[in-house]
């Protein structure tokens, strides 16, 4: 399993890794700390030997752009069409959420303040998405 993670807060990257571990999910994480890096990576996915992730987790507010900018680029890459994309953020305004959903985000994961909730809820959601995302891809290939 491979996760495309756009997240500027290294603390959150560490938390997500912990959550995955607690879900017993053995994942490789491709981490990008800025929107710019994530956009470049999203363009390359599936081309020139770059791997296709099983899940794209995008923070919304990032340096040099936001989650929607990455979604827009990912939407133009046919290799990423079947990959589930989620926005993972602590707070999102209604219009931002609407835009993200329009650009192909399948859902929104709100980062809980509470550590236990983070481990439980975020971990479970990722596991669910990885399961759901893997199936249609398997059917087409």
């Amino acid at each position, binding site marked *: 399993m491979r996760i495309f993670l756009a997240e500027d*807060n290294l*603390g*959150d990257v560490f*938390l997500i890794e*912990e959550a995955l571990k607690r879900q017993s999910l053995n994942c490789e994480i491709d981490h990008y700390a800025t929107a710019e890096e994530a956009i470049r990576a999203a363009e390359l996915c599936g081309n020139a030997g770059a791997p296709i992730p099983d899940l794209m987790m995008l923070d919304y*507010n990032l340096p040099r752009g936001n989650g929607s900018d990455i979604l827009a680029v990912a939407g133009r890459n046919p290799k990423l069409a079947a990959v589930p994309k989620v926005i993972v953020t*602590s*707070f999102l305004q209604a219009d931002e959420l609407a835009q993200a959903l329009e650009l192909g985000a399948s859902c929104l994961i709100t*980062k809980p*303040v*509470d*550590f*236990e909730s*983070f481990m439980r809820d975020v971990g479970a959601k990722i596991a669910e998405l990885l399961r759901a995302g893997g199936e249609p891809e398997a059917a087409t290939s």
Partner: protein
Amino acid sequence: MTAIRERTTLSVAAKVPPEENGRVKLLLVDDDADNLLALQAILEPLQQDLMLAQTGTDALRLCLEHDFAAILLDVRMPEMDGFETAEMIRARKKSLQTPILFVTAYRSDEQLFRGYNLGAVDFLFKPIVPEILQSKVTVFVELRRTEQLLRRKAEELERAEQRFRAVLEAAPDAMVITNQAGTIELANSRADTLFGRSREALIGRDIHSVLPAWECAEEGFPRASQQPTPEQRLIAYRDDGSPFPAEITRNSFHTPDGLLITTAIRDATDQAHAEARIQKTNLELEKRVAERTAALRYSNEALRQFAWAASHDLQEPIRTVVTYSQWLSQIMNSNLGARESKMLATIEQHASRLNQLLAGLRQYIQVSDSGLHPMTPVDCNAVVKAATWNLQAMIQESGASIECGTLPTITSLELPLVQLFQNLISNAIKYRSAEPPVVRISAQADENYWVFSVRDNGIGIDPNYFDYIFGVFRRLHVSEKSGTGIGLAICRAAAERLGGRIWVESTPGNGSTFHVSLPQ
């Protein structure tokens, strides 16, 4: 003859103007004293002032001094006969019109012709028939009386007209009197000056030539004794064709010739200039206000964006601190001493609190900005339901009972309304007394407003702080009560954004009631 003279003199001495005693003067002229006495006796019942003369000269003298209603003149007299006397009387302007009745014994055509030629009005033939004499003289007495009456009336009219003109001239405005069609019948000298025309040129003209928009109101005008019509601004034209703004008021009065309309006209040029200046000043003021408003709006928007970004960007590190301190305490659980545990708990507690403050601040900013959205009908029952749903955990934990009456549907905004009620309810639960909290929500119509009341049985509020509590980050209690100090500030921001206001009534130890008035 002496006796007669005396009578004459006496009569003259009375000097009572005929107008006042209603008597007129008659002159009887005969050279024969007996004839005079006879005439006098016949005319006495008429109760007029009789004057007697025995010669033409005397008669002339009396005519100079008195104005007679009629003269009875004997034709045959020595020295100067009746015709000669009549001629002399007629020659004087004063007595030119005095009716002369000749008394004669002869009925000759020549005499009649001469008499009438000299202005005789009648002839009386001797012997005199008293009734005829009386009735003929009565005619002249009546004639004179009528004439006097007419003259008096004419004088009165003249005086009235003079008074009227004096009033017209003394008026501060130009006054123009017209008939209903607008033909000018009278104008004062201010009207001449105002229009640059002579009065004669104005009189007889159509008022529309100077005031084209002048109209005769269908419902008529107020009477002269009443308040005139309200001021009306029209364009008037001077004789040279130059226009000027005029302010007119009108009223009317009845005359035998029909209704006349008085139009008072005032040159409003100065006033119009002043108005234009005021308007210009107002426009400048408005422009400056608009500029200031734009500047304020800009800085407001900048501040809002700053507050929003700050509340948002601070959220991330704080959340991370909370999560990590929890993670650490979880891992270290068994290996930490009491001191270290307390230190870690304090970090977590304060980070959590900062997190709550930021959430409150975001809510506050959101409510403050909500005024930009259009208002729609909102069912307040559903609003309270949503608010209590959001507070489920708190309500269950505290064992609070929320009693809500039937609430109206108002034209408002749902989000700030939910936040308003949510914060009021959570405030009521937070500051509860030892008893289980009971929150009662009701609404009462008050003219164009609904006054909502949220009543609790909590600890109450000291009246000194009734205003203070609505400020941002204002708290009355230490953090154990878990307040962020922003809940009531959100309520106030919401109430004000929704065009209403909020206030509180409370007795410490006896609960509080928060009232919110909102437009219907």
